[in-house]
């Protein structure tokens, strides 16, 4: 069933892109069964690629100096040759937008179409995190709204006033997501219309809350605490949400800007949690598709060698001497190929480790199920096999600060597999890696001090300098004094205290 060559040589034109896309689409949907958002492919220059980087891959954002800073960083390192640009950037939107660099060869264009427009696209569309936290069909409209709104505020209240709120909100953007409990899907499209009504209603409720103050006697007691907590919805881990709703001194436009930062942060929330899977999925998909194109005679040997070369560059895992951490492309791709192997040609070891999938003969279905229902942490815990651990020659180091040396307490052997897998999975658990900071109380009757609590994981305190700088920003938004206790989760003992007052 040989088909004609899609192209030969390195040059491409729009006809080449279209033919490659059609051939890839046939394989992706008919053979791999991928479910996709409609695709849109945009060809850009390297300078435009730098712009795309700057805004975390967003096609448009509001104006802020931090984007300029990121632009300068990327530009510096690009111009000085420290880093090259990505071949593509893909946006989790509907339609799914992939940016291709004009410098790419015909083979690279085909490869990145397979990688981004099919691999990532399928992942965005099907993974439960992205389904739950993001609304791809509205993000572009919402960014447009955000840009217009921020710019209108700048005209009206001045760049400095807007920047003050944006700076502060950015500092807290990691704490702008309702992590637990069902998040209602955001309807970003109607945000603009709802903005005014919501604001009026909130202000009414909010006034009631504070109006009770002058009469209330400062009588600390558990009932009062429970009351306050109920009124303010405490404890609250979504700091930006809390400030947006309950901060006493903000103008309504300031609340809206906090909300913009919060919603955009929420849109990005799933990305780091599924990086290994997302890249693994995209890399596996492009490799499979390109291999099939070669098998069916649609690309020539030279093109396929370029594919192999490019893929092996991407999935290179440097040893621990070069720094900690796993290349998400390498780990992800290794796990995807390994799952295929376990499904199709299981060994005795696989049968005892993965009795439910070993030899089930449905590698594609198993992969699609994995892509849809896991995140990095659970995916590794479920699917990391001894073979992958051996291939990566993984080992675990125990760092005990009371000991002068580090201990190798597990290596890739029968004793070590489970320990390594558990530890590695944990290192991808956002619940353990993000600081758990909550608003616990507000002194409603006194000086309106806001009390926060950081429930620490053993040995993990906040970086002091950054914590205090961030608290200053928090104080900007709250308007009164802030006190942050870092407490031991088990004993409730206070380990450290930071305070901050608004300037002036």
């Amino acid at each position, binding site marked *: 069933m040989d088909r004609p060559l899609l192209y030969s040589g390195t040059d491409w034109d*729009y006809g080449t*892109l279209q033919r490659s*896309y059609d051939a890839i*689409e046939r394989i992706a949907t008919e053979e791999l069964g991928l479910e996709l958002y*409609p695709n849109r*492919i*945009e060809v*850009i220059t390297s*300078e*435009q690629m730098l*712009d795309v*980087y*700057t805004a975390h891959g967003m096609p448009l954002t509001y*104006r802020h*100096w931090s*984007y*300029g800073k990121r*632009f*300068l960083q990327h530009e*510096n390192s690009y111009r000085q040759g420290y880093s090259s640009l990505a071949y593509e950037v893909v946006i989790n939107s509907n339609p799914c937008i992939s*940016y291709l660099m*004009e410098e790419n060869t015909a083979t690279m264009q085909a490869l990145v179409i397979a990688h981004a*427009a099919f691999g990532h696209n399928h992942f965005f569309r099907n993974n439960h995190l992205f389904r739950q936290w993001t609304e791809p069909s509205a993000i572009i409209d919402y960014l447009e709204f955000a840009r217009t709104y921020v710019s209108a505020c700048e005209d009206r209240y001045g760049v400095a006033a807007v920047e003050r709120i944006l700076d502060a909100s*950015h500092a*807290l953007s*990691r*704490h702008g997501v309702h992590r637990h409990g069902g998040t209602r899907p955001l309807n970003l499209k109607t945000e603009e219309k709802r903005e005014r009504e919501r604001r009026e209603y909130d202000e009414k409720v909010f006034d009631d809350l504070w109006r009770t103050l002058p009469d209330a006697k400062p009588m600390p007691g558990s009932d009062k605490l429970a009351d306050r907590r109920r009124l303010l919805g405490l404890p609250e881990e979504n700091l930006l949400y809390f400030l947006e709703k309950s901060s006493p001194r903000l103008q309504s436009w300031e609340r809206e800007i906090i909300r913009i930062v919060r919603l955009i942060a929420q849109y990005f929330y799933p990305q780091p949690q599924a990086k290994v899977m997302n*890249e693994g999925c995209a890399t596996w998909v492009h490799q499979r598709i390109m291999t099939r194109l070669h098998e069916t005679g649609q690309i020539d040997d030279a093109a396929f060698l370029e594919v192999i070369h490019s893929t092996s560059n*991407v999935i290179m895992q440097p*040893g*621990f001497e070069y*720094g*900690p*951490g*796993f*290349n*998400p492309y390498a780990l992800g791709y290794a796990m995807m190929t390994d799952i295929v192997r376990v499904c199709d040609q299981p060994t005795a070891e696989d049968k005892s480790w993965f009795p439910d999938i070993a030899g089930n003969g449905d590698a594609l279905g198993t992969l699609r199920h994995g892509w849809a229902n896991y995140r990095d942490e659970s995916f590794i815990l479920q699917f990391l096999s001894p073979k992958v651990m051996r291939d*990566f*020659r*993984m*080992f675990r180091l*125990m*760092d005990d*600060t009371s000991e002068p*040396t*580090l*201990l*190798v*307490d*597990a290596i890739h052997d029968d*004793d070590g597999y489970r320990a390594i897998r558990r*530890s590695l999975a944990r290192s991808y658990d956002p619940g353990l890696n993000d*600081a758990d900071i909550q608003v616990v109380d507000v002194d409603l009757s006194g000086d309106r001090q806001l009390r926060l609590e*950081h429930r620490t994981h053993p*040995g993990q*305190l906040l970086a002091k300098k*950054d*914590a205090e*700088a961030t608290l200053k*920003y928090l104080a900007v938004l709250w308007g009164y004094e802030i006190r942050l206790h870092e407490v031991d989760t088990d004993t409730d003992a206070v380990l450290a205290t930071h305070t901050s007052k608004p300037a002036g």
Partner: protein
Amino acid sequence: MDIIDRRSNPHGKNLDNRQRVLARARGAIARAARNAIDQGTLRETGQGETVTIPADVLHEPSFHTVFTAGQRDVVLSGNKEFSKGDRLKRPPGGGGGGGAGNGAGQGEGEAQDGFRFVLTRDEFLDLFFEDLELPDLVKNQVVATDTMTPSRAGISVDGTPSQVDMSRTMRQSMARRIGLRRPKPPEVKELEEEVARLTSTGEDVEKLQALRGELELALRRLARVPWVDPIDMRYRRFTPVPKPSARAVMFCLMDVSGSMSESMKDLAKRFFLLLHVFLERRYKRVDLVFIRHTEVAEEVEEEVFFTDPRTGGTIVSTALAELTRIQRERYPAGSWNIYAAQASDGDNSGSDTHRAVAMLENDILPIVQHFAYIEVSISAAIIRGETDLWRGYAPLAERAPKLAMRRVAERKDIFPVFRDLFGRKVAA
């Protein structure tokens, strides 16, 4: 599926954001510049374009945890030699906490040492002098529209003999000669010789006849087509161009008598340097004239000016007289912007102050854009109160806005004083 070519979309999306970074870093850069002055590296700083701003200025903080004490474990790859139970030395720095993403994603850049910025010299100086304004700027900008300078403007077919462009003219001439088939003199000579030979031997009559005809034709052509014709002439063309007054001269006057200590001279030097950088930014060309004086004044080189100590009394008017003399000789007020800065400890021989004030008022202030008088004093000297020169200049300064006077006692005063002198005046 749509394919969209975005390459022709407007570029420079982030220019505005870049400007905002600059604006935010403005304070830090100005601070860096002031530090540079304090450390005496002003000239280098003025030239440099790469600035390193402390990272905090552009730091975006967030709550994040660091491992402080207790136990943690980390999984690594690439084990070549370790077995369970091996103990390893701690890497210096304690090892990073989170794994930095590899690949082409966006890493969460945590702490950087400093933020390097590539600024143009103009950008740098703009920041450096952010709100400084030249005194009397209006006059300076347009002062020289009446001075025209001839500027080369191509080739013309007419002009004066002194402006003949020989090579162009000869090129024209040669082209014309070839075009009109003017015979070359050696060819004519050869023909003549051949004709003469045949005539004398008288052997080939037919050929002689033909050659004679040919020779006649050649001679006629030679006479008709000139070697250089007036239409070949080419002249260099000059166009008068109005010359912007892009030049300034800065007179540095300093008392180098015994009473000026090294540290006082150092203060003065800093002020001069600052003024020089400032003027360099405004004018294409800035001339420096150094005049030092004791009882007598003389023009010296920069090196000598700052280093060579002198002894003797102080007569200020000699320096002012020297300034006037040099200015009249070399820097006509019509085509030069004149600045003067005088540094002194305020001592003057009693009878001279009157003369100095009079010279300043009558001869100098009318022609300069600005005259800055800096009185340097080490802190002890301040106790003495007003000096001779200060007392003399003070009433004049009230009358004449071009004269500005300040006291400087310490290095850190220099920049504020400079700003004070040249700062943009708030419209009253």
